[in-house]
């Protein structure tokens, strides 16, 4: 399911943009990227350069949480495959997460080509697909809400009563609410409980979504490239 796509035009020629793209990290727009390695690199029979890279990113969790979890468990790894065709002047880059894959997959594709009308400019087309595993994002959010509201009313809510129309009632008697008033009181109680004691699978899924959102911010990838170009104008010949 495609979630996000955009196009950006750089005011620089293709060669300049590509040189910056190959040296993208570190940059201040992506502080979460803490490690980059080239795993494999080769030129194919058509003269195109293939690179396989491994990125490690930090979630940006508070240091207390990191201390509890252990630093290595807060790292997310991403693999990247890029192809640079110097004759056709096209660079294509695809990346996907290789950890947290049981929860979420974030797939990104970037294509850099010269602007069709102006060779001094470069077009970046970018698209990202985020899939919460097993569900589309919309239906995941729906089911999360549905589960919160319709969770088993027969369970002990941890309170000894529910207040309905000023009367204290045993919540277990409301497991099959006879009226919408009783039902909504139950729902309110449950939601209150849920907000204080989030269930772990739901919280984990939300964390995965937050992780995906942080990666979304990284999708303003053009801003990082512009910064690299600006800060290495003298080095880029």
């Amino acid at each position, binding site marked *: 399911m495609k979630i996000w796509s955009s196009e950006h035009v750089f005011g620089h020629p293709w*060669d300049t943009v*590509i*040189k910056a793209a*190959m*040296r993208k*990290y*570190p940059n201040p727009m992506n502080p979460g*990227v*803490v*490690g*980059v*390695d*080239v*795993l*494999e*690199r080769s*030129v194919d029979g058509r*003269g195109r*350069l293939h690179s*396989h890279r*491994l990125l*490690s990113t930090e979630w940006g969790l508070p240091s207390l949480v990191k201390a509890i979890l252990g630093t*290595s468990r807060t790292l997310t*790894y991403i*693999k990247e495959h890029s192809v*640079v065709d*110097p*004759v056709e002047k096209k660079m294509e880059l695809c990346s996907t997460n*290789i*950890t947290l894959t049981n929860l979420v997959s974030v797939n990104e594709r970037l294509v850099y080509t010269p602007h069709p009308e102006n060779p001094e400019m470069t077009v970046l087309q970018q698209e990202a697909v985020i899939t919460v595993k097993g569900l589309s994002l919309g239906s995941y959010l729906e089911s999360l809400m549905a589960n919160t509201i319709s969770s088993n009313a027969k369970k002990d809510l941890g309170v000894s009563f529910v207040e309905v129309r000023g009367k204290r009632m045993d919540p277990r008697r409301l497991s099959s609410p006879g009226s919408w008033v009783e039902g909504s009181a139950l729902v309110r109680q449950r939601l209150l409980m849920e907000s204080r004691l989030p269930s772990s699978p739901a919280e984990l899924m939300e964390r995965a979504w937050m992780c995906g959102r942080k990666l979304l911010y990284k999708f303003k990838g053009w801003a990082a490239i512009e910064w690299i170009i600006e800060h290495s104008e003298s080095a*880029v*010949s």
Partner: protein
Amino acid sequence: MNSVGEACTDMKREYDQCFNRWFAEKFLKGDGSGDPCTDLFKRYQQCVQKAIKEKEIPIEGLEFMGRGKEKPESSS
């Protein structure tokens, strides 16, 4: 920028410098032959592969330089 394996960072930076120079001055100008960074890359690679195994990073199906289609044992 650091390497994923802390011990490999210096080798990575040396290789990156070599690669970036070759990429800008040769490859993009149409001369893709004669990669001068092969030796640097081999040493750097050995270090990275070791780090990947140690950290149990789930890399699969990649061909590593000089190792053909061999897959790392610790994949997934």
